Every structure is written in structure tokens, then in C-alpha cells.
């Protein structure tokens, strides 16, 4: 039916499932310049691939995902660029057509399962809603499917729990409900916006495992947003690092994390705890990310970058490929990482 994730790697990179090109998201102004929040973001996700996006809070990760799902907050819109899903352009697609994709093709999981679940509808009915609409299932069949999906996400006693309301469940169970809801129509692309950030560490691991297993079963591709490098490391195969609305570095997870080529990625790694070397000293990145309206003219990282030179403050560094599939947006990358083998 659908290509499995294992077989997909080589064949489907050419034909990506989601191709985002030069995406700009921001606030359109009637007078003066538009406020650009997400600036020229491009990435590809192949069928069955797991793609992670990391970056500090406010770097534009959520807006990027929401643009794909057509869930941008009021006032914020796609200013330019293209979002190709399975060869179809999503930017400017009529609303009705786009809604038909949401569920069976593209699904989304949010950070806060408590607020993302409708408080007055039983969770089983919320899971059954998508299958009823898109798969044309009867009320009873959709309910059985919902209970089945709940069992698959490891919810004990799913039949009884399906009649519960969100406030009657624990955070971990709620997020499993969200996952069951998102995968109930076997989507080909699952957008996850920090799905485990609100959970305890132990529950985090369990929920991630469930998510991975279900996606592997159905060959679903993941776009996984988080600020946690360890989570990307565990879950994804390729990744992008975002800073102030732009992609700083991208490539395979192994490449980027073991051989970073952007000072910001390096900074993130140095400031994150490492379970293999618990005694290593953590070095925080000095300063704060710029605000949306206060992004500097050149490289957005320049004010915090220990390697910044004159050019960094006047021009935006383009993304350049270092090795196939691994690219970075830094003028000084070669010089900085000269001693490090590529």
C-alpha cells in the first residue's frame, strides 16, 4: 500500500512528501514593511522520514508547522514561498480542499494535550470524529476503531477510558489520546509540535516510543518540532536547526549532532546536558535571541556569535552545502571548523 520507511530512504528523497521552499511567514502590513517572522525556510521530508526541527523558544518552529496545517494564528499569514504536499501546492489552496487533506493525509499533535482536547466531548468521540468524516465509518465502527487506536497507544482499559473527558485523565494518557486521534486515519505526514514537552521525563520516553512505533507501522512521515536535542536524537533521522525564523543548519541527525557546522548548533550542544558525559561543563550561549521586530540586518546570530566578523553584520549568510545533504548558513563555517574533519 504505502512505501515502508526502510525502503523509502534512497528512492523517495527525489520525490519528497513535503517540500517547503523559501517559506516566509509574518504579519502583512497595509503600510510599510511586512513583519517577517519565519524567513526563507526550506526543507524536504520524504515519505516515512522523521524530520526534527530544533531551536530556542520563539524561533518560529510552531508557526512553520502551523503553516503546513493551515492553522496559523489570526493575523499571521504565509507571505510568500511554497508548501508542496505530495506534489500539490498548499499555499493558496481553497479551504475546503485543504480540510479534506487534514486527517487522512496530514495530522497534527500539539504541545498541550489538556488544551488541545475539547473539554466537553468524550475523548473516544474526539478520536472517532476524523474516521467518521474521512473514512465514512458508522458511529459504532468509528467507536471501535477509536478504542482500538487507544489500545495501540498503550492506554489501559480503553473501552472505559473512551468515555472519559480530558480532565479525568493524566497528562501522559491525554497525549496518548492525541496520538491515537492523529494516527486514526493513518496520515502520511504527522506534524508534532513539542508533543512531549509538557510531560515528565519518564512519561516522555514512553510517549515517544508509542509515537515512533505507530509511525513505523503505517509508514507515516514525522515533522517533529522540539527545543530538546536529546529528543531529536532519539526520534529523528534528519533535522534542521532554526534560529530567529531561519534555518541555521540542516542534515542527518548523526551528521549535525556529531559534526556541527554552525556556531549556533555548537552552542546548543555545549549548553545541553549530555547523558554520556555527565561531568562535562555546560556552557550557555551568552545573550538572548532577537525579537521578531528586532532581528539584526545580517546574520541573526551575529550579536551572540563569538566568531562574528564585519561581513556577518551586513549580509545574511546563505545556506551552503558542506557535504551532500548537510548544509549550514554561516560565512565563517570553514574557518571555524577547519580543524574538525568534515
Amino acid at each position, binding site marked *: 500500500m504505502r512505501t515502508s520507511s526502510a525502503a523509502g530512504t534512497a528512492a523517495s528523497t527525489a520525490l519528497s512528501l513535503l517540500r517547503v521552499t523559501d517559506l516566509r511567514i509574518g504579519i502583512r502590513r497595509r503600510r510599510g514593511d511586512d513583519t517577517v517572522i519565519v524567513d526563507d525556510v526550506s526543507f524536504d521530508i520524504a515519505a516515512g522520514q522523521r524530520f526534527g526541527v530544533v531551536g530556542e523558544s520563539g524561533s518560529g518552529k510552531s508557526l512553520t508547522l502551523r503553516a503546513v*496545517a*493551515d*492553522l496559523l*494564528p*489570526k493575523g499571521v499569514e504565509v507571505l510568500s514561498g511554497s508548501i508542496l504536499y505530495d506534489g500539490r501546492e498548499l499555499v493558496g489552496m481553497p*479551504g*475546503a480542499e485543504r*480540510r*479534506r*487533506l*487534514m*486527517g*487522512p493525509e*496530514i*495530522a*497534527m499533535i*500539539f504541545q*498541550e494535550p489538556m*488544551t*488541545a*482536547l*475539547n*473539554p*466537553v*466531548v468524550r475523548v473516544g468521540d*474526539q478520536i472517532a*470524529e*476524523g474516521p467518521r*468524516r*474521512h473514512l465514512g465509518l458508522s458511529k459504532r465502527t468509528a467507536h471501535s476503531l477509536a478504542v482500538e487506536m487507544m489500545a495501540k497507544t498503550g492506554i489501559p482499559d480503553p473501552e472505559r477510558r473512551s468515555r472519559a*473527558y480530558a*480532565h479525568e485523565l493524566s497528562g501522559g494518557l491525554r497525549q496518548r489520546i*492525541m496520538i491515537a*486521534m*492523529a494516527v486514526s486515519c493513518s496520515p502520511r505526514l504527522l506534524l508534532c509540535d513539542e508533543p512531549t514537552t509538557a510531560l515528565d521525563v519518564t512519561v516522555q520516553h514512553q510517549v515517544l516510543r508509542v509515537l515512533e512505533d505507530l509511525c513505523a507501522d503505517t509508514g507515516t512521515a514525522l515533522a517533529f518540532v522540539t527545543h530538546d536535542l536529546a529528543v531529536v536524537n532519539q526520534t529523528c533521522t534528519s533535522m534542521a536547526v532554526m534560529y530567529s525564523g531561519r534555518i541555521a543548519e540542516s542534515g542527518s541527525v548523526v551528521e549535525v549532532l556529531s559534526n556541527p557546522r554552525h556556531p549556533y548548533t555548537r552552542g546548543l550542544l555545549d549548553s545541553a546536558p549530555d547523558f554520556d558525559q555527565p561531568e562535562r561543563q555546560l556552557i550557555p550561549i551568552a545573550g538572548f535571541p532577537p525579537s521578531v521586530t528586532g532581528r539584526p540586518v545580517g546574520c541573526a546570530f551575529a550579536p551572540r556569535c563569538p566568531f562574528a566578523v564585519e561581513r556577518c553584520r551586513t549580509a545574511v549568510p546563505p545556506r551552503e552545502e558542506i557535504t551532500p545533504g548537510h548544509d549550514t548558513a554561516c560565512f565563517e563555517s570553514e574557518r571555524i571548523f577547519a580543524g574538525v574533519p568534515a
Partner: protein
Amino acid sequence: MLHRLSFVPGRLLQSVPVAFGVTLLVFFLAHLLPGNAALALLGQRATPESVAALTEQLGLNKPLWEQYLLFLKQLGQGNLGTSLTYQSPVTGLVLGAIPVTLTLLAYALVLSLAISIPLSALASFRPGGGRDLGVRAFTLLGQGMPQFWVGIMLILLLAVGLRTFPVGGYGETAGEHLYFLFLPSLTLAIAMSPTIIRSLRSSMITVLESDYVGTAKSKGASGVSLLTGHVLRNAAIPTVSVIGVNLGYLVGGSLVIERVFALPGLGSLMINSIFTRDFPTVQGVTLFVALFVVVVGILTDVIYTILDPRVDLGRASSA
């Protein structure tokens, strides 16, 4: 569900002293009015002797507290006393008028919802947009116009002018009732909807921006399915209390509107009895209105509990 409704019997019990308090208040307030029923019955030219005789016959010369105790005693036997002007049991008079007023109120509520829900939805999908401004103009207008004036205008326009609706009266059959009650109900609905719309509009805007509506959209819900499946019930929760409180005011409004449209309801009965100093009838109507307000309050909480599974009023009050 049922255990969350366990607060109802307690609330019903609490309403008994409230109803008593109201009768007490009205009893003494009513007797502050100058003149009495004997004078009202016999007219201006009656001799003082005949007025005194009738006063004694009606028991109006007894001390007030004795009259009140008598009223309570009768009430205990399910008897509201005898109307001084109609010379028939008050219970019968009140029971005869109740259906008219209750139908009017229910009808007005249905019309209010029929006006408010679509207008609120229209306004909230694009706050600050043209439709929103239009709806807000309507609410301002609806609030600014006095009810009796709206009623008279509707009569002039639709009853006298276009002759599509009757000028007044109640009709004979159920179908006629709905037809005759349309204009008075509409009058009340126009007064009631602005309050509902303001509450519903703002809660719909909040709900539309909520995460769970995002989730619903991510499942492909939009338009009417989004509205009925995810927005309305959540937005209704705060509005239910607003409607509950305003139904009390609506009763007050209906008393006046019944006069304007010559409806044989509690309002007309009440006003006639006040003019004729027919205290037992005034008491009966008041008692019923007080009970009605109390019951509406309890019903509001019941609906609130049914709509919102997070609410547990029994637990909240005992904790």
C-alpha cells in the same frame, strides 16, 4: 452524570424559605398602598357605611399579621384564598393565566436563541469585520429601545400596517396561540437578544481561538460541523448563566408586554389586581413568579452541569 445533579433536592428545599420571604415582603408592601378592595369594588360614590360593611365582610379589618397567618394557613391547604374582585379561587385564576405567560416566555426564549446564535456566529468568525460591526449595531439598538415602544412599533407596522399579525389577544387553538403570541414574543426577544449576543459572541471568539478548535480543524472540521461539534457547546457554558439571570428580568418585561398586547396572562392579572387592591390575587401571582425565578435558577445550574462535565456543584458547595 446523575451524581453531579445531586445538588438539586437541596436547592429545592432552600427555595421554600425564599418563597416565604417573598410572600411576606409582598404582603406588607401591598398593604402600604392607600385604599382597599372594598373601596375599589364599590367605587367612588359608595357611602362610608357600605364600605365599612364590605371591609368587615372581606375580613380586611382584621390586624395585618392575622390576615397573613390566615393566608399561610390556607396556603398550607393548597389554597391561595378567594379573589376579592372576581369572587373565585385565586388558584384557578393563577393556573388559568400561567400557560399564557409560560408560553410567552418560552416562545421569547426560542426566538432569542434563533436570533442570537446565528448573529453571534456571524460576528465572531471575523471580529472587527463588517458583519461584526453590523451585529454590534443591532445589539446597541436592541438595548436602547424600551420594550413597550418596540411592542407598539411592531403592532403599528406588522399588525395595523401590514395586517400580517393580530393586534392582540391569545387565540383559541395551539396553532393560534403561536400566531397570536409571535409579536409579543418577538418584542421580548429583541430586548433579550443583545445580552445573549454579547455573551455568546465574546465566548465564541475565545473558543474559536482555542487549541481544541485548532485540533478540530486538524481533523478536517470546518464551517457548520466545527460550529456544532466544537464551538457552540463550549461557548454556551458561560451564556447559560447569563440567560438564567435575564429570564428573571424577562418575567418583569412580560408583565408590561402582556398589557400592550392584551394577553390574559399573569402580567395582566397582576396589574388588574393591584389596581383593585385584590391582595389575595397579587399574593398568588407573586408567589408563582418567585417560584418560577427559583426554578429557573436551579434549571440553569442543571443545564450548566449537563453542558460542562468539569462542573460538580454538589462537591463545590460541600467542600
